[in-house]
């Protein structure tokens, strides 16, 4: 059987033109997807049943036992952390928010270590953006700033920018200019028309300089800014101003360096400045296929996109205080539920040391680094493969992922709903 128009649950591009060939409940071939997506569709090393850590060995338990364990753990905690959420569907994320509200815990998603700083910037100055198709059809200038789509979003270039056809571009490949700004000469940089190499930590200064140059205040700018010659900055500013439609796509090169969200704020303010001259937009290269969905769900249900603390009943938001890395490193939680992410692989070691000290339950299809810190792990279906549900693309377009094969694994939503029901029952008693 071939499933057409399947939706790839890997990165924020959320490509929905994938063909998946299934035989005997196994994926045997994947067409159209990039290497990242193909490997995910073909992944096979699933955990077979829920496991419980018993001293220094693992023991299989039933789903009922595992769900009960999680419910008891969350109910007895004074400040449980519910973390992850980017690797699951929106319907499960909604249950997660209800759970956090009920047990008065902290709910945070992977954006705190990804594009959380971008969100903080947007909260200061807003976000002039657009859907990917607007760029594909119109943009004659695309800037990748601190992002490396060839490695992280392999089809971004072919579906939306460099190699995409566009309604208003006669010869898109020729008519569309690409600028790459980075500290490394990545593969993406090598296909650019212009590469701007910045000294590490210099993005903010370069962005400020460009803002001034766009306003015509070139005199104040020193001869070089963070390793970039003033002449190149002027050339880039002119390319931007003379474009009919410019689009900036930025990545973790801006969110993870010194200044963090202030870098993105500065980039947004540059785009707002350019909007006085021509059409310009800016967007984040969101990583997980549904990290944006997690932000959306949290926002309509709690008012905030990530890092929400319900300890006091009402929602409190303060990234840097209510975000997972800070809470774990400061040992400020006493239980953790992990869904759809792998903090042990992606968090600094100090956070892991605290995970080792507190009860941890994880929902994940695969054994991963976090498994090592779990008291209980519950294997679930993979959204987009054996579970369906809503995901939000990096530009906010919601797409329903398809189920391409059937397994006996329950979905995240099913498992979480059972936990939630148990907890409500216990609290109402």
């Amino acid at each position, binding site marked *: 059987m071939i499933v057409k128009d399947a939706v790839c649950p*890997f990165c924020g591009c959320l490509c929905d033109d994938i063909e998946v060939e299934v035989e005997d409940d196994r994926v045997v071939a994947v067409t159209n997807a990039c*290497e*990242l997506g193909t*490997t*995910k569709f073909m*992944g096979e*090393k699933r955990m077979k049943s829920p*496991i419980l*850590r018993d001293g220094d060995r*693992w023991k299989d338990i039933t789903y009922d036992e595992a769900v009960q364990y999680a419910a008891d753990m969350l109910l007895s905690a004074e400040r449980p952390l519910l973390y992850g959420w980017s690797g699951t569907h929106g319907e499960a994320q909604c249950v997660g928010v209800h759970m956090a509200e009920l047990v008065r815990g902290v709910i945070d998603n992977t954006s*705190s*270590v990804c594009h*959380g*700083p971008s969100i*903080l910037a947007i909260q200061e100055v807003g976000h002039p953006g657009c859907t990917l198709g607007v760029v594909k059809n119109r943009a004659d200038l695309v800037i990748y700033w601190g992002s*490396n789509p060839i*490695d992280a979003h*392999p089809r971004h270039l072919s579906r939306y920018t460099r190699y995409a056809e566009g309604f208003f571009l006669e010869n898109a490949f020729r008519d569309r200019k690409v600028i790459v700004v980075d*500290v*490394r*000469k990545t*593969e993406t940089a090598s296909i650019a028309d212009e590469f701007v190499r910045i000294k*590490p*930590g210099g993005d903010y200064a370069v962005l400020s300089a460009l803002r001034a140059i766009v306003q015509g205040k070139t005199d104040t700018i020193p001869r070089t800014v963070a390793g970039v010659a003033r002449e190149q900055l002027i050339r880039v500013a002119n390319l931007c101003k003379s474009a009919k439609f410019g689009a900036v796509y930025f990545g*973790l*090169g801006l*969110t*993870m*360096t*010194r200044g*963090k*969200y202030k870098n993105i704020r500065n980039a947004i303010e540059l785009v707002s400045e350019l909007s006085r001259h021509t059409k310009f937009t800016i967007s984040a290269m969101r990583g997980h296929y549904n990290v944006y969905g997690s932000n959306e769900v949290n926002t309509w249900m709690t008012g905030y996109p*990530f890092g929400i603390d319900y300890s006091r009943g009402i929602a409190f938001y303060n*990234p*840097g*205080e209510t*975000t*997972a*890395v*800070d809470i*774990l*490193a400061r040992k400020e939680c006493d239980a953790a539920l992990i869904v759809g992410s*792998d903090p*042990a*692989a*992606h*968090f*600094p*070691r*100090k956070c*892991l040391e605290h*995970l*080792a*000290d507190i009860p941890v339950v994880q929902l994940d299809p*695969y*054994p*991963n*680094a976090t498994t*090592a*810190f779990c008291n209980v792990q519950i294997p679930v279906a993979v959204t987009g493969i054996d579970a369906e549900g809503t995901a939000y693309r990096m530009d906010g377009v919601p797409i329903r992922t398809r189920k391409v094969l059937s397994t006996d694994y329950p979905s995240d939503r099913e498992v979480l709903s059972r936990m939630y029901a148990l907890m409500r029952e216990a609290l109402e008693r």
Partner: protein
Amino acid sequence: MTFLMITGRTVNQGVTVENKTSAEYAAETSTCFMHEFDMLELGLDDGDTIRVTGPCGEVVMRASASVEVETGTVFVPYGPYANHIVAAGTRSTGMPDFKSHDVEIEPTDEEPKTVYELMEDLGGLAYDR
């Protein structure tokens, strides 16, 4: 020698990220991409093991020459190896300094640990079924 360590995504990291118990994932995320001049200076060949010491400890990785990084800078794919030495401070933004750590690099005879060995060092328990 002191280097600026930058971490980030790579295709191979992405391809192996859903299979963290695999040797391929460990190999990719324990690779330290360096400028070949820096490797010459440290007397390193491609694939040699190095000890990388950061603000929060040390970890053994393998050096690999790359044309993408400048001298004085190294690039390590996101994962448990880099995170073994990354500091958890976020400057109150929620986000650690994943791309701006100073590290010391020296040659070593030790072999990189497996992912689960790293986790066990921090109080975890390997799952190997």
